[in-house]
């Protein structure tokens, strides 16, 4: 049993294919678990980061009480939500009310099976990867619609109708922007493109350019269209009409509470990460580090592989600064100790990453080299996703909310024509180039 498990691992580590395709079902299952747990943890972290970042945008401190600098706040929140009474309104459609959050959650999490964190760091490499992602993420709207309907209340119903109309409209512009990126994958000798997520990144690697800069500014415009549409898809500010607090109290999840409400939040953040991952894969070169064609060679590889360690080192440094700056009152003793431990933990991770980077310097088949490579891929992918997540927070802090008719106007009269135009131009330019 043990040896077969180890064999399964090593066979995966030696395979250039994702676990689902390499036939390594055990590893694929473990991978699914890792990703689901990882997404849940990232959502918790994101919760803390959003509250903190938003607070600092708004000249306040945000959570400070639970743990040093509120680091344990998300855990406290999660506990609270789990222990809260799960209220189902009497007049609600019980079954649908119960199922609705699950639909959204399942749709948001299923998408992760095709997200390529690296050339072999994905659960599966589907031939229809991007189609599958768009399709499954569009199922999320069903959860919102059914939630709004099942609540049997006016505000949720209006929120649900708004949100479904909004998501269906922006899917059109989003899909066309995606198609123009897929079109770019076919610019090679044989003229066949791919829908596979891994294939798209490999096409960028092969052509030596991120699709963001391809046919400047066509790629950029398509990317901007997608970046706007993905905010609308995930119902985030300034397109958060479905849960517009000042208009509809809380929109489609007005009647939800406790764990079921937190499932909606989980689904929302998971969907945010998922759409950011699509944008990163299609336009920002996925797991590739910056300037993949100019800055290659062993020396650059080594320099880039130091980045994960440097990032964690910087985080550790911040934590150390926080520890030092904490007031010396006895009240803060435990918090100070906690932050110090956290800093140590981060520093340890940084050290570990440095060690792996240095040990795996030579591109041989040693375990360290493989680890270094995998960490590198995942790091660059996550870094790009993190930038998008920060943008989501930034938008929320800065902009007022669109009105429903304006939202529709922007979607149909501005974004759709532009994305169609970009698609046509990309096709024309592509034909001339090849």
């Amino acid at each position, binding site marked *: 049993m043990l040896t077969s498990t180890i064999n399964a691992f090593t066979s995966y580590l030696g395979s250039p294919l994702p676990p689902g395709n390499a036939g390594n079902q055990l590893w694929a299952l473990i991978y699914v678990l890792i990703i689901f747990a990882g997404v849940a943890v990232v959502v918790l972290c994101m919760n803390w980061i959003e509250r903190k970042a938003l607070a600092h945008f708004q000249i306040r401190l945000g959570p400070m009480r639970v743990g040093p600098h509120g680091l344990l706040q998300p855990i406290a929140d999660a506990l609270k939500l789990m222990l809260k009474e799960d209220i189902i309104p009497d007049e609600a459609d019980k079954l649908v009310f119960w199922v609705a959050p699950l639909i959204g959650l399942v749709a948001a999490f299923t998408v992760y099976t095709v997200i390529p964190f690296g050339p072999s760091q994905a659960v599966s490499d589907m031939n229809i990867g991007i189609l599958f992602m768009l399709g499954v993420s569009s199922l999320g709207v069903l959860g919102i619609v059914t939630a709004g309907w099942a609540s049997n209340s006016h505000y949720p119903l209006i929120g649900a109708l708004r949100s479904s109309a909004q998501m269906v409209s922006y899917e059109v512009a989003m899909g066309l922007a995606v198609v123009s990126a897929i079109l770019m994958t076919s610019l090679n000798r044989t003229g066949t493109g791919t829908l596979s997520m891994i294939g798209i990144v490999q096409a960028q690697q092969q052509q030596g350019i991120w699709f963001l800069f391809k046919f400047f500014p066509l790629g950029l415009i398509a990317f901007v269209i997608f970046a706007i549409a993905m905010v609308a898809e995930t119902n985030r500010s300034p397109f958060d009409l479905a849960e517009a607090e000042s208009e509809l109290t809380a929109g489609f999840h007005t009647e939800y509470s406790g764990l079921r409400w937190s499932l909606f939040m989980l689904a929302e953040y998971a969907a945010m990460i998922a759409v950011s991952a699509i944008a990163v894969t299609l336009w920002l070169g996925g797991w590739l580090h910056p300037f993949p064609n100019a800055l290659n060679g062993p020396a650059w590889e080594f320099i880039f592989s130091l980045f994960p360690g440097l990032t964690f080192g910087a985080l550790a440094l911040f934590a150390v600064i926080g520890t030092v700056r904490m007031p010396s009152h006895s009240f803060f003793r435990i918090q100070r100790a906690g932050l110090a431990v956290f800093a140590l933990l981060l520093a340890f991770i940084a050290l570990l990453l440095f060690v792996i980077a240095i040990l795996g310097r030579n591109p041989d088949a040693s375990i360290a080299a493989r680890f270094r490579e995998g960490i590198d891929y995942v790091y660059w992918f996550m870094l790009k996703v993190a930038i998008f997540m920060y943008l989501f927070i930034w938008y929320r802090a800065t902009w*007022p909310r669109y009105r429903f008719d304006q939202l529709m106007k922007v979607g149909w009269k501005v974004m759709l024509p532009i994305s169609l135009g970009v698609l046509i131009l990309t096709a024309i330019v592509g034909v001339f180039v090849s």
Partner: protein
Amino acid sequence: MTDVPMANVKDNTLPNAVSQVPSSHLDLETPEHPYLDSNELIINMGPQHPATHGVLRVILKLDGEKVLGTECVIGYLHRGVEKIAENRTYTMFNPYVDRMDYVAAVSNGLGYCQAVEKLLNVEAPPRANYIRVILTELNRIASHQLWLGTHALDIGAMTPLFYTFRDREEILKIFEKYCGARLTTHAFRIGGCQYETYAGFEKDVKNFLAFFPPKIDEYETLLTGNRIWIERTKNVGVISAEDCIALGVTGPVLRASGVKWDIRKAIPYANYSDFDFEIPIGENGDTYDRYLVRMIEMRQSLRIIEQAINGLPEGPIMAKVPKVIKPAPGEIYHSIEAPKGELGYFIVSDGSTQPYRLRVRPPSFVNLQALDLMVRGMLVADVVAVIGTLDIVLGEVDR
């Protein structure tokens, strides 16, 4: 109680200029057309709703998202302030007025004190008036800041709220140092001010004068040129000057519709004629114009404060007022320009120590009448924007 003077005043003075003053009652029972049922939706906005600024309940009749009509249900915060006045002496009633428009308590106090002074034929000394002007204008800024923050929050921009609260704090600190209270200040007394300015008052106010203009610029960078803000506010909640006048709407709402009416200029009180300031007016009477008008008003208030603090005269701060205030029988109406519009006090005295009848003309209450006219045919999101732009305080609406 047969000869209450107010009872004879019939409210039939509405001119016909009102183009489409709506029928006051919605036909809540039967939909007009047997169309899709869910198309004609009646929803209750409030009294517990994040965007109704308190306990206002608006019954909305919707066609999808479009508003077919509204009806405001008020009174959830009714405390009977006017009735309380009949059972208190003039002096005792003074703190109660702070509880009406609690974000502009100083203005309320000013209006009440001046009305009673007028009844008594007493004039507050110039130094008292200057202090009153400084504090009232500071309060106007504070009120507009609160309006700006909550209005922006209603429209979805959450950050300006915190910026305005940060800067409002400076004003409240001055209030606290002056009279010990931050919100319900009870700053003025009948006949003048009770407190002399504290040491460092001038410095504090001057510091604020230097501190605040960049902050207004900061708000404006966030909102004035913001495309979404412009789209959300331009041509939203338009009200014409005629309709404003017909409905008795005053304050920035009236001025944004293009009527140059400001009691500080029109019927100057409390030495306002000493100061040089502009009355901003708008053109379209939409939410964006009201926003701009209020932003300019803040800057103009700074101008007034600057002139007042530089020309603060020496002298007494209290006029000769009898210990027991017993005005001669008669009636008086005095109005001031509160941050939200014309705040009037109508006091009937029967010669006793208590008012026979006291009636407040609250600007929020009157302005709220325009809501239905302004939101008909608009969308649900606009109702929120219009409630925000009317700048109502439910404590004042319900009294």
